[in-house]
């Protein structure tokens, strides 16, 4: 009898300690969908950049505002769509798990994500300001990877490995400038679909 009670106690605190730290409402589906958005965005961007016959150089883009503006709009739409999808699926899952989307753990999660992302965003703008366009893609991927690793203690274990993968992709992108779009398609598209699928199979069904 006593033994059973102790085992129940141990089980309940193991569960509590995990739930008090981890944001369990994140859904794998939002990972898959944001990966799909990223791939669509990459295809549209590819079309913008490589359609036409003129040889395009950095100076060309600096002078060509419509292309730069279009690329910016594509990136922004992909980002917003991913954020809204992430919020929506988390909201649904939170309801199913009878918990709240905005709680102590999601607040911590956001802070842990935000610090590397904001620093990375500003640093990337600094790179743009100095004209180092060829390492922008790498910089974004690397800071995103660091943000994921930083926040992974508040998320599922898989997110840490996703972060490591983003770092590897980002570093390779830095070594091979000029292929940024492809590396973005891998880092934000394929990896999100892969890890989103893994998380969906493991936690959502």
């Amino acid at each position, binding site marked *: 009898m*006593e033994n059973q009670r102790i*085992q129940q*106690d141990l089980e*309940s605190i193991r569960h509590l*300690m995990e*739930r*008090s*730290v981890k944001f369990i409402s994140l859904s794998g589906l939002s990972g898959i969908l944001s990966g799909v958005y990223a791939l669509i965005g990459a295809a549209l961007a590819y079309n913008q950049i490589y359609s036409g016959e003129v040889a395009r150089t950095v100076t060309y883009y600096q002078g060509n505002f419509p292309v730069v503006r279009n690329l910016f709009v594509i990136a922004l739409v992909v980002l917003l769509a991913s954020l809204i999808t992430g919020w929506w699926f988390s909201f649904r899952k939170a309801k199913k798990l009878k918990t709240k989307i905005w*709680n*102590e753990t999601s607040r911590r999660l956001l802070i842990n994500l935000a610090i590397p992302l904001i620093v990375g965003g500003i640093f990337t703008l600094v790179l743009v300001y100095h004209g180092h366009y060829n390492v922008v893609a790498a910089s974004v991927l690397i800071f995103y990877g660091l943000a994921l690793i930083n926040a992974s203690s508040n998320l599922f274990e898989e997110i840490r490995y996703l972060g490591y993968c983003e770092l590897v992709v980002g570093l390779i992108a830095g070594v091979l400038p000029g292929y940024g779009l492809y590396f973005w398609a891998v880092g934000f598209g394929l990896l999100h679909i892969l890890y989103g699928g893994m998380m969906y199979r493991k936690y959502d069904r």
Partner: protein
Amino acid sequence: MKNFFENLDKTLEHRTRLQITSVLVANDSYDFIALKELLDTTDGNLATHLKALEREKYISINKSFIDKKPNTRYKITERGRSAFKKHIDAMEELIKQQKK
């Protein structure tokens, strides 16, 4: 056999207190409302057990105001952390003993 029961912590033998302590061990600090939600308990029940833990100096309390609303945060003390560890070790020993 008897020895292991003696190693159990009298304060932490109550499940709600053990749960509160476990959450505070896993996190830097936690506030009252978040604890209440997580443990799915009532204000009165939670307050009673928090007071018991505070009396033993297992937790420390920090009261402040956020947007003019009172906010009470709880933290584990070193004393509380080692008591928790000892209690869990004793529980594990007990299970091991009884399996034999």
